[in-house]
């Protein structure tokens, strides 16, 4: 089966440094893919190249066997939807108004939202269980509710690929699992960045491990989340086990070892003086 998205030798350099270095991978249709890696690994930059926000890269990014650069902005928006981390809303928009914005790639300047499109929006609101919030202001919602609204807006674009940048950020454990459960139940290809390795292990079919702009490993949780690779990338000793509740691989962190390195006793008086405290 042809891949939905194919990336080969993707490299993005700014004047100062190489942000992404020779990255290659493929995504299958309707698969759930998670990008993991430390801060500054290039996860968000990689996503931005894939949805056309960054274009000055070298290498090939193909969507449905066609270079992504050959798509117009509107064509791309009909295929790929994005849920970003930041949403700078200064004005009071309702949930329904925000979700309807997802129809923009399917509307011309002169067309109105049709009854079938209205029904489609209602279905999405029901699917995400946010029907009761439709007339509430987005800014008045909790983090979990806001995230669901943004996903609903993205789904209104009818995408084949849904890109999510840290969808579980700022959410409590309940909402983290609720959102990821929902995302994984969608019949679209998912590509998301996550910080929690266990969430990636539980929910992703395919994990991409990045560090310093490079793709270190990609594959199943068993293949990628090994103690050696995690220790190399995150500088953190870990042990692996099996979560008895879902039979998925679970990563145990030796947090106390890390804590010891940062106890006040480890800071000498000379270092304190040098820091000017």
């Amino acid at each position: 089966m042809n891949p939905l998205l194919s990336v080969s030798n993707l490299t993005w350099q700014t004047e100062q440094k190489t942000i992404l270095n020779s990255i290659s991978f493929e995504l299958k249709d309707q698969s759930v893919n998670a990008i993991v890696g430390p801060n500054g690994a290039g996860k968000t930059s990689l996503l931005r190249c894939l949805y056309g926000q960054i274009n000055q890269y070298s290498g090939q990014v193909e969507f449905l066997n066609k270079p992504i650069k050959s798509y117009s902005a509107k064509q791309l928006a009909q295929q790929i939807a994005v849920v970003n981390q930041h949403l700078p809303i200064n004005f009071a928009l309702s949930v329904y108004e925000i979700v309807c914005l997802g129809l923009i790639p399917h509307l011309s300047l002169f067309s109105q939202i049709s009854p079938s499109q209205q029904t489609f929006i209602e279905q999405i609101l029901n699917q995400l269980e946010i029907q009761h919030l439709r007339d509430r202001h987005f800014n008045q919602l909790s983090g979990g509710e806001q995230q669901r609204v943004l996903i609903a807006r993205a789904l209104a674009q009818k995408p084949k690929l849904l890109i999510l940048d840290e969808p579980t950020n700022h959410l409590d454990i309940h909402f983290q699992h609720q959102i990821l459960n929902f995302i994984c139940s969608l019949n679209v290809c998912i590509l998301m960045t996550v910080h929690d390795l266990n969430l990636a292990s539980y929910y992703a079919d395919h994990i991409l491990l990045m560090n310093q702009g490079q793709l270190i490993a990609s594959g199943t949780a068993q293949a990628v989340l090994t103690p050696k690779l995690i220790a190399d990338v995150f500088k953190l000793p870990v042990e692996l086990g099996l979560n008895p509740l879902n039979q998925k691989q679970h990563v145990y962190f030796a947090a106390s070892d890390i804590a010891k390195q940062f106890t006040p006793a480890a800071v000498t008086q000379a270092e304190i003086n040098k820091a000017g405290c």
Partner: protein
Amino acid sequence: MKIWSNQQKWLFLAISFVLLVVSLFSSLTFGAAQLPAEQVIACIFNQCTDNLEQTLVWQIRLPRILAAILCGAGLAVAGAILQNTTRNPLAEPYLFGVVAGAGLGASIASIWFVNYIAIALPVAAFLGAVLAISIVMLFGISSKARRVESLILAGVAVSFMLSALSQFLLYMGDPFATNRVMFWLMGSLARVEMQDLSIITPVIFVCISLVLLFHRHLDALLLGDENAQSMGIQVNKLRLLMLAICAALTATLVAYCGGIGFVGLMIPHIVRQWFSSTSAWLIIGCCLLGGIFLIWVDVLARTLVNGQELPIGIITSILGSIFFLTLMLKKH
């Protein structure tokens, strides 16, 4: 803040429209000369017994009331567009150097084209306003200044630069020219005649129609540039188009009516608070409320001081600042 249903929004628009029409006709009765309502109605239907009254209604009062509606609507819409495109609720046309540019044009016309001042002043003011916003737009096109904050700062810088230039010209020039420019900058609808409306009206209608075409795109911009781009919107092109529309709207209005501040800031703010933040409703609401507001401010300008007309820009600025201070106190 409660979100209104579509029925409530339509009702609000209908009431606003009725208020606008009522304001239009009732404001015809206000002015230095006493003209009772029945006389005004007779004059509207060309059944006036006195030719002077007929002229007063058709040649003097009606053009300036229509100008008030167009000016109020145009400035409020320009403010709303700028606020949405910059995602800054405090953005307004004058922040982008439009008045400073028009002032420079007016200064040049007043000093060097005194003999043709009636034509030269609006033309030069228009060109000055276009020059100001063109500099800001050129800055916006350059790849290093595409951020919204940079655009606003560029507007402020251009505004100061052009103000300084016109002050320099006026300082070196004729004191009468300084007076003329000063009064012109305070704003007035008295200068607008029927034939001027044939230029102002199509500009306002074309600009507002264009904005309404892009209403969903403007809403998408509220979610941030990157989100809007992921919805297929060419953000930089859209922003430049909206800036160009603002330039056309404000430059035309400033050229004929001078500086009328705060309308572009206050009216969109009220419409958002009471009515809706989505662009389609916001633009229509701004047209109606902006028109009503400026009709009554013009009535105040004509009647507040006996036998004398106040510059309209002074009243809008006083009302605008009181409005914002009250709003801040309420919020605290």
